[in-house]
């Protein structure tokens, strides 16, 4: 197992390197706003723009910029002019072209909001999705099953942005019809951890809705397959109680695809996929920040957030794979 983990970590680092290279290529190949011109402002003359381009390190060859960035992220060395453009590393992601604030500072400032949003949403979608999937599988083809599956289809189809706005207009305590939950930007107003959690209640529900529905459908399908297996029949024949049959034998086998999904979903959301929820509820998270960075062609910020995101996806996938080994005795790693 240890060898497996080490191998996966090394592959993860290689993947981060590759992701960074792709981002660099995209930035230079596809049309984007020129960050030096944006920074220079209206009516800047060519000399000023050239000077700003040099300051930002954009006048160096692309390969040099890329290697400098990798050096700053992964090593403490002053190679490729690292000290002249943002300083040495490790874990130095450079400064935002727009605000000149260290990218690490911006990401660490934004990450808690996204992390809390994702954590709460995960709890909700597991609490909603798993029991729904199990009960639907057990009560297959009953009215309850049909109602839950149609409802889940509705939540899967509804765009998150729309769902969020509807939720605000119905339940927000400032603009809603029924004043129950904190509304837009209440996260910014919250002082304590509990206040922040309460401010995210509606965003949690919105973000969890579609995912819970997907998980319910997946688990239902998986449970139906598992519950028809021979060993389930054997367990019943041996006199094992029905709840034990379902939970210890059925769910334990059926849940492995859900674990895979969970790892991917958490990684993707931490990488910025919660952008729509963050925008609707004005939660100052990572997703929100990367959209602004893309509009402003703020390469260091884009790079930094993408790298963080890739890191989370790699880590959570590794956690998921390790969890498999414990959940499913049939899985063993060489």
């Amino acid at each position, binding site marked *: 197992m240890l060898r497996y983990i080490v191998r996966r970590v090394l592959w993860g680092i290689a993947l981060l390197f590759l992701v960074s290279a792709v981002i660099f290529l995209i930035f230079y190949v596809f049309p984007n706003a020129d960050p030096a011109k944006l920074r220079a402002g209206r009516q800047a003359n060519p000399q000023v723009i050239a000077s700003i381009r040099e300051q930002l390190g954009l006048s160096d060859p692309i390969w040099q910029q890329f290697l400098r960035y990798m050096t700053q992220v992964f090593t403490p060395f002053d190679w490729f002019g690292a000290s002249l453009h943002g300083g040495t590393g490790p874990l130095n992601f450079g400064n935002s072209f727009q605000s000149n604030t260290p990218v690490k500072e911006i990401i660490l400032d934004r990450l808690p909001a996204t992390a809390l949003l994702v954590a709460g949403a995960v709890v909700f979608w597991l609490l909603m999705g798993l029991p729904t999937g199990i009960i639907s599988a057990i009560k297959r083809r009953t009215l309850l099953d049909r109602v839950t599956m149609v409802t889940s289809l509705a939540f899967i189809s509804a765009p998150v942005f729309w769902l969020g706005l509807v939720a605000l207009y119905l339940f927000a305590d400032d603009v809603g019809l029924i004043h129950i939950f904190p509304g837009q930007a209440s996260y910014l107003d919250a002082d304590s951890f509990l206040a922040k959690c309460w401010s995210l209640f509606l965003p949690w529900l919105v973000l969890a809705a579609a995912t819970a529905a997907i998980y319910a459908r997946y688990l239902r399908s998986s449970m139906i397959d598992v519950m028809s297996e021979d060993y389930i029949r054997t367990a019943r024949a041996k006199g094992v109680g029905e709840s034990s049959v379902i939970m210890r034998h059925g769910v334990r086998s059926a849940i492995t695809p859900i674990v895979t999904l969970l790892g991917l979903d958490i990684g993707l959301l931490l990488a910025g996929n919660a952008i729509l929820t963050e925008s609707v509820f004005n939660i100052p998270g990572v997703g929100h920040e990367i959209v602004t960075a893309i*509009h402003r062609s703020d390469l260091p910020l884009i790079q930094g957030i993408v790298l963080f995101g890739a890191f989370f996806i790699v880590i959570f996938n590794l956690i998921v794979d390790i969890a498999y080994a414990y959940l499913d005795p049939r899985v063993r790693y060489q």
Partner: protein
Amino acid sequence: MRLTRLRLLLPALLVAALAVALSSCGGGGDNTTGGEESAGIPSEFKAPTAAPDNAAEGGTLTVLNEGDIDYMDPGAAYYQVTYELTLATQRSLMGWPPDATQPEPDLADGQPQVSDDGKTITFKIRSGVKYSPPVDREVKSQDVKYAIERSLLSGVPNGYTRAYLADIEGFAQAEQQLKQDKTTAPEISGIETPDDQTLVINLTRSSSVPVIQALSLPVSAPVPEEYAKQYDAESPSTYGQYVTFTGPYMVQNDCDIKVDTADHTAEAQNSDCSGKLTGYKPGKEIELVRNPNWDGEATGDYRPAYLDAVTVQEGFADPTSASQKILTGDSQVSGDFPPSKTIVQEVATGNKYTPDQMVAVPSGGNRYIALNVTKPPFDDIDVRKAVIANSDRTALRNTRGGELFGPVATHFIPPLIPGFEEAGGIQGPDLDFVKNPDGDPAVAKKYMEKAGFKSGKCEGSDCDVTMVGDDAPPGFDTATVFKNQLEELGFSVDFQPVSHDIMYTKFCSVPAQEPNVCPNVGWIKDFNDPQSILQVPFSGDSINPSNNSNWPQLDDPAINKAISSAVTITDEKQRAEAWAKIDDQVTALAPAVPWVWDNDVLVRSEDVNGVANLFNGEWDLAYTSVSK
């Protein structure tokens, strides 16, 4: 009439009344009290520009913004929304009380003395003005000199110093110095500081008027060299993370300023601090607190500063829900976004919200559609006149939200700017192709025939035009409406929508790449002088190979000469007349389709006594208060 029917009709009547009121507005009015009428703003939506008599001290105001300011560094700040902060946190040499249409002394102790030849300007600096913690010392004239000099550094990307202050003696030499040393602010020999309270500016020509106006912008906010030099030495400058303030408010920093809400004073809790701004989180939030070292009464500051704190929250992507939050909430105001059309209607009709929660302020800006005069088909003036004549400029204006968002433009100087009335006011110059705001196909046909198109419509390969515009509303809507109007006249339009920043940096502001039409451009005044509206957008001398803002690429020798000469006029009346004539000349050459003089529409919570500043068209944080 039955009561139920009357109730149903009442909103419609109110909207109709609003339309009538708006359509009957226009023409006349001077630049102070009548300005808002000439900007098409009915009296019930006129923004208060003075605090009420019962304004109370205390409270925290929240400003809701969609985006961020451009720069916290006053040397680089060049955005109306950023001025909302700098007007409350920095004391420039000249400043803008809310109802001022000309700059008034702020850091300067009285109006500047200008020599008879208009080439020497002398400012006296007020005593007792102190920097916020941790700098804490009194402001000196040398600090203003340093502030102007550091704005030449490319690490401090100032967008207007070169445009307005290049006539200062020694400016060109200072720019040369920068080639040797890019991280030290160069010396501008024409700025002298004979003592700590005196600043003398020597000019190469008598352009004192625009120079004094430009010194009302944040570039003249003092910067202590001994404190800022270390940050300016970095590339780019990091002073923006350590700014020190002289106004009634400051951005919270690591000195940990605590405000006593009982007596409305403030004190630094941590004396061992570097001045790093902890209250500015780019794209997220800005926290303003009272400046412990500000004494408005002792230093002759006109700002009353009622609030104890201001929080700017950013990231509100949906203007409708954000506006609703403000209108139904407490102690909030809108920042950089206008309310949506739905909200405007709801507030105007009074059904859901109180109408006085919404106000409009002339922004001092215009919007126009630039026609590239350097290549066919718009190198032909008759074709350009035909396009303008054919344009339904009312429809273009309505893509922004309707009448409250500004009157249909007929020339380029906006209301409240000297020269507006002299250039024809709302009605505009006596030119047939701009007379009808809804478009005049007959006049358009006449000009197309004059251009050689006997059918009255464009024919031939020159009529295939490219247009690069915004990919998001309302800019996208404006571009689409104009595209349809061009096609009515026989043009074949290849419209390429791109993001706003790409539109400028890759296409419209790069003459070599510029398409035939740039539909989403415009200009906002830098200060209340017509030079700041006309010079950069229409002078041939300002055409740049990149970051160009003369989008039509107009380079007319007569206009260039007139502009060069008008810059040096010091008499107010003569200046207004000269620039109005230039406005007429530009309009007559038809390089662009002027379609609106923008109004800024602002909303506030019911408990906010909002005061708007006519200079930047935003709420004035140093005059606004909250009811207790």
